[in-house]
């Protein structure tokens, strides 16, 4: 996931992702990344 510095703002490189899932066998959490660069933590998923 690359955050490129551009004049007038920051954008994701084409190889960017829309989400990242982190978890173990009992729980996963999703981190969502919007096209506008907003990053938020999603709900728990058992």
């Amino acid at each position, binding site marked *: *996931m*690359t*955050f*490129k*510095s551009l004049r007038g*703002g*920051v954008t*994701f*490189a*084409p*190889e*960017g*992702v*829309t*989400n*990242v*899932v*982190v*978890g*173990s*066998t*009992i*729980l*996963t*959490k999703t*981190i969502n*990344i919007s*096209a506008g*660069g907003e*990053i*938020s*933590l999603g709900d*728990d998923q058992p």
Partner: protein
Amino acid sequence: MKAWARGFTLIELLISFSVVALIAGLGFASFNQFNRRQQVVNAAQALLTDLRLAQSKAQNMEIPPGPTSTDCSKPLCATLCQTNPLVGYQLDFAGSLTTYSLKALCPPLSLVVKTVTFPSGIQKSGGLPR
């Protein structure tokens, strides 16, 4: 002799200990599960923070600190991001499911700002390409 002074029978004691052991076992299992869930939440929160850190550093065009003078025997040391313009920051899993690095990108070079390893049993399990 009064009835209460007789004490407890072996059966009564065994039943009492069994109930206590059962409750303790359930409590321990529940605590263990809570603990593991909390580790996942913390790992996700740390990753979220690092993603925002990468974004913020890129936004501010923050030049990463150069290596200390003791590292200056190495080529390209302190001049890394002065001679090679900073174009952004990257959170790089580099094929790993459990470790990622925050890198400053100064093509053709990159400088690792920090490296994080998830606790045991936690890993990146997916991610959708944009």
